[in-house]
């Protein structure tokens, strides 16, 4: 239709309402009758409570059966872990322990974005958690090795399973060294890929007697069986799920800075919600329950403006192998599909992530975009880092933003924190560090494990 043509009159004889065709007829219902007839349109459909019948198995049911048969020991989340119950994709319950946590660190976070774990530990201290009792960070743990597996193909299900069981066995027994019972500390997995990988491996372990048999020999040799049995966790819990269940306490008890002026976009990590997707948390109060809740929910609780964008479902471009050896793919994808869209559509002040690889990818690959005329940028950080800033944590000492390449200065300033003052203070602190005067979040002696 050209611009000068008049649109058809919806009420004209024989024309019907535009788009409904000539067969359209008025119902002549009263307003009350019309409202009743269209009730179903307004009805809230709880997508989380659909009946899946036999189409989807809850692997945890089989886990309990295996324990009953004496095959495994389940590391339980008890009342002592003060759990919160949340709902996952299909409306299944998932218990998230809030205390007595064993920090299972992420190699990418610790190596590259250290403000990620420090912000998390800082929060636990702010809530009055006692290190060595309410949480433990120790040296007796390895990477999950899944980054390497997904990148190179070196490794296999047995090696991934043995690493999973070794690390989680250590979590189970770690309390003993500090005078607690077995199972005192419950593992809190920091990395999204570890989280996805461990869930996948747990599923294989529960489904395959052959795999259990093979890894049992390895764990036996390592002295990592309990009463001759493998230890498998009741739930695999990601740190962002802890932040999610603590979000109202964080906002109500600790928030110091109003961030209602911030426009926030969120990139949910693929390995958080696309691997063993039935285990990811969704909440009807967070973007209508149409997006995985962690990450977004804390931004919402802190009062930021959460802005959605069309490429929310895309991965970041990390690729495991690609970030190391095919960086053209990684940076092109992250700039074209994430940063540009978050900038142009959402005009966001910051993009939050809930995983290691995504934050590294999106944070580090912006500057090079200028070579292709992509002259835009966006501060990138983890949900827990933004939350810590909003609760008054030091941008350098605690949030460790000095390791980020994206312009985090901009969002810090917009929150009313002086970047230059904080930086000058930190540079003074570095002189203290050189003299050996180092501040710690917990007594370093507690870290010695194994």
């Amino acid at each position: 239709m050209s611009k000068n043509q008049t649109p058809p009159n919806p009420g004209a004889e024989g024309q019907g309402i535009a788009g409904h065709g000539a067969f359209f007829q008025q119902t002549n219902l009263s307003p009350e009758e019309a409202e009743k007839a269209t009730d179903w349109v307004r009805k809230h459909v709880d997508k989380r409570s659909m009946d899946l019948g036999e189409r989807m198995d809850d692997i945890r049911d089989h886990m309990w059966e295996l324990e009953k048969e004496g095959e495994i020991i389940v590391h339980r989340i008890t009342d002592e872990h003060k759990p919160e119950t949340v709902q996952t994709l299909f409306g299944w319950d998932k218990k998230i322990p809030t205390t007595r946590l064993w920090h299972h660190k992420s190699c990418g976070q610790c190596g590259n974005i250290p403000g990620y774990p420090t912000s998390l530990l800082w929060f636990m201290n702010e809530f009055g958690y006692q290190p060595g009792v309410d949480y433990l960070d120790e040296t007796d743990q390895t990477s999950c090795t899944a980054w390497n597996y997904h990148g190179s193909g070196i490794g296999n299900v047995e090696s991934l399973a043995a690493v999973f069981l070794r690390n989680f066995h250590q979590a189970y027994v770690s309390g003993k060294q500090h005078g607690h019972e077995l199972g005192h500390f419950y593992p809190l997995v920091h990395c999204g890929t570890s989280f996805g990988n461990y869930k996948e491996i747990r599923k294989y372990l529960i489904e395959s007697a052959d795999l259990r048999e093979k890894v049992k020999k390895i764990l036996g040799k390592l002295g990592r069986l309990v009463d001759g049995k493998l230890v498998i966790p009741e739930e695999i819990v990601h740190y962002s799920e802890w932040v999610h269940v603590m979000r109202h306490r964080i906002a109500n008890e600790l928030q110091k800075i109003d961030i209602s002026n911030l426009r926030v976009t969120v990139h949910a990590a693929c390995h958080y919600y696309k691997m063993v997707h039935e285990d990811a948390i969704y909440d009807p109060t967070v973007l209508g329950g149409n997006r995985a809740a962690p990450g977004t929910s804390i931004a919402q609780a802190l009062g930021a403006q959460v802005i959605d964008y069309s490429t929310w479902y895309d991965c970041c471009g990390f690729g495991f192998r690609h970030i190391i050896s095919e960086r053209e793919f990684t940076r092109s994808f992250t700039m074209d599909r994430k940063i540009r869209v978050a900038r142009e559509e959402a005009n966001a002040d910051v993009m939050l992530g809930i995983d290691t690889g995504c934050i590294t990818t999106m944070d580090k690959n912006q500057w090079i975009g200028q070579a292709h005329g992509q002259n835009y940028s966006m501060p990138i950080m983890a949900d827990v880092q933004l939350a810590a800033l909003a609760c008054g944590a030091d941008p350098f000492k605690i949030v460790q933003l000095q390791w980020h390449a994206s312009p985090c200065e901009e969002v810090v300033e917009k929150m009313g924190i002086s970047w230059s003052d904080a930086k000058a203070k930190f540079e003074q602190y570095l002189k203290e560090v050189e003299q050996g005067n180092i501040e710690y979040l917990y007594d370093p002696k507690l870290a010695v494990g194994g």
Partner: protein
Amino acid sequence: MATYAEMQEIFDDIRSDFRYDHELNGCLNCGICTATCPSAQFYDYSPREIVQLLWTENVDQIYDAMQEKIWACAQCMTCAARCPFKNSPGGLVAIMREVAIKHGMDSARDVLRPFGRVMLKLITTGNQLSPDMIQPDHFPDWGPNIQKVEGDLKTLRKAIPVKTLQTTATAWEVSLKTSVEMYTIWEMTGVLDALELMDENLFDVIEDFIDEKREEYEDWLEEQEEDDDD
């Protein structure tokens, strides 16, 4: 070029993986996986094609796809989350990569060459990467703002208020006992054998390192026993 029998053997190895039936349940050719795949936007790669080749047991084209295509997958698993048949093309690619390594395929060797440094770090320390691998000099494409505070790496790491993170050669401090346990896992699961097939030089370096660390651990154990006797 492999013979048909060799290609058949490779396919048999793929489908005998216990995950295979879990990851492949049928295919409507709907292409949702490819439509949503990040790698499909940049490479000659389609998860739908991978699934179709496997589903139709097209052994020579499966072999062909293993030369290059399977290494394009970003392993994000978006395909798996979207597939109406609950296939996991990304999971199938992971199996194919493992088999490519098992058969010492050149494509795997080429792909893994730039991965050597990461592999060395992971196998020997139990950490995938470390702060000293992520220095500005190694990543000029990350731009001038990569380090917002001047200072040497050691001091900057010491300024992290968490004891386990005050390291430069590993992402966090891993106890010696833990690393030694990892070596046992690598050995007993055939990971070191796979590595030897892929890169003999790297394997030799890693073996020497492992021997050294094991000796160090034995010495430490002896010291502990002596202390206990005293």
